[in-house]
């Protein structure tokens, strides 16, 4: 088996032709996504190239503060992505706080644990290990967190009458919202459980494929992939649970009320429609 197969810029650009092809198909079938295809393709190339340059610089410095700064920026963007994927938005700073808090708790805990116990690079924060590891764990935790939070708000909204019927009978908010919490957690965890179940049978995970293509030993690539899957699973689990508890706490108050008036509907012109007035109509 040889080393990495060299890849020229024009070869990557040729693969980009597939994105252009999709844009043409979108135009042909009037899907209205041609601009989105081209912008997304250009963003992928630009963002990853920029990231490559940044990582090249950071890897060369091997400074703890620089690694921490890069990790913080990644976290800030991930928090924004979680908020962007919500059909019913929590108040911006509180929702952003839940997303960032859940990922900070989950991704950083798991990454720091892995760096100090399993991977053990020297120094432990070596950016060429820490940042890719954190990126992979955070990317998956972000998906789980966003899904859990979105499912929680949607389910609490959909089942609001049943939840309030239980509250009215003297049930605690924890009991009344438990089915919604369970549904949110299950939904948030499903992608990683599916990915683990299908790994190696239905799909070859991207990291393992990348390592093999880059000339790494298959055995080493496999062991690293299994490790990464387990770390992602750990991070996603923690993130989903933290997001579900944080979200349900935000949508209740100290008198065990369901506070859907704190949600706003993204695709609704009027935020007010999903607050006091709508609830008043609902209860009549």
């Amino acid at each position, binding site marked *: 088996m040889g080393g990495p197969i060299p890849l020229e810029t024009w070869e990557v650009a040729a693969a980009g032709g597939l994105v252009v092809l999709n844009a043409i198909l979108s135009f042909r079938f009037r899907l209205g996504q041609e601009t989105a295809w081209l912008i997304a393709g250009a963003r992928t190339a630009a963002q990853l190239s920029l990231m490559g340059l940044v990582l090249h610089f950071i890897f060369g410095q091997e400074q703890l503060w620089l690694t921490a700064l890069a990790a913080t920026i990644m976290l800030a963007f991930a928090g924004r992505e979680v908020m962007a994927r919500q059909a019913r938005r929590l108040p911006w700073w509180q929702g952003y706080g839940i997303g960032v808090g859940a990922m900070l708790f989950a991704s950083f805990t798991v990454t720091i644990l892995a760096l100090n116990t399993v991977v053990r690079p020297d120094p432990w924060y070596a950016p060429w290990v820490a940042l890719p590891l954190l990126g992979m764990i955070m990317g998956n935790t972000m998906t789980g967190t966003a899904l859990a939070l979105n499912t929680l708000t949607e389910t609490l909204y959909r*089942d609001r*009458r*049943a*939840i*309030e*019927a*239980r*509250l*009215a*009978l*003297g*049930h*605690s908010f924890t009991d*009344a919202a438990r*089915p919604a919490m369970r549904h949110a957690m299950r939904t948030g965890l499903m992608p990683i459980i599916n990915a683990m179940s299908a790994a190696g049978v239905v799909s070859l995970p991207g990291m393992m494929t990348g390592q093999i293509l880059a000339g790494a030993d298959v055995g080493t690539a496999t062991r690293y992939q299994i490790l990464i899957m387990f770390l992602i699973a750990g991070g996603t689990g923690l993130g989903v649970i933290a997001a579900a508890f944080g979200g349900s706490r935000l949508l209740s*108050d100290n*008198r*065990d*009320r*369901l506070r859907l008036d704190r949600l706003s509907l993204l695709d609704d012109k009027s935020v007010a429609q999903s607050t*006091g007035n709508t*609830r*008043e109509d609902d*209860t*009549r």
Partner: protein
Amino acid sequence: MALLEVRSLARPPLLGPVSFTLDAGTCLGIEGPSGSGKSTLLRALADLDPARGEVFLNGTARNSMPAAAWRARVCYVAAEPAWWAERVGDHFADEERGARLAEALGLAGAMDWTVTRLSTGEGQRLGLARALAGKPAVLLLDEPTSGLDRDAARRVARALERLLEDGGSVVLVAHDPALLDSLAARRLRMANGRLEAAA
């Protein structure tokens, strides 16, 4: 001492401020046009929505009691009760008591029914039975007979009379003058979120 005392309860701009007292064993009837704030008042009394003002039960301030304990004692029944389990009986902590109450409301054997087969009227009566099963001190009823035939409405009125005889109290929001006449010792009218004497 009044069983329930309400002082300046308000939820701007929908409600109040409203004040009234309710003695044990009595029913306060509230009528008024749709959108006047009747349901808002009941929800605020049950502490389901945040509201200003004070509410006391037997002299104990609402905020000094845990919310769940307050709602178990001051129980709100919506016009269309909602369900969270498939089987009717699973909504009752004491199924035997629930079965007796349901039978008194003309729904013998209802504990084993699935909630998807309930008609509006059956759902209303079972919602009332579910609330009565918890032995509340005050029942907050929102249009309890709006979807019922005459016989079913009579059964509901009888169940509420029994609650009043046992020392319970009822705040009854209704458009049905016959029901208000038969149960409510005192009647008030809600208009633009304010309570006034009924005409």
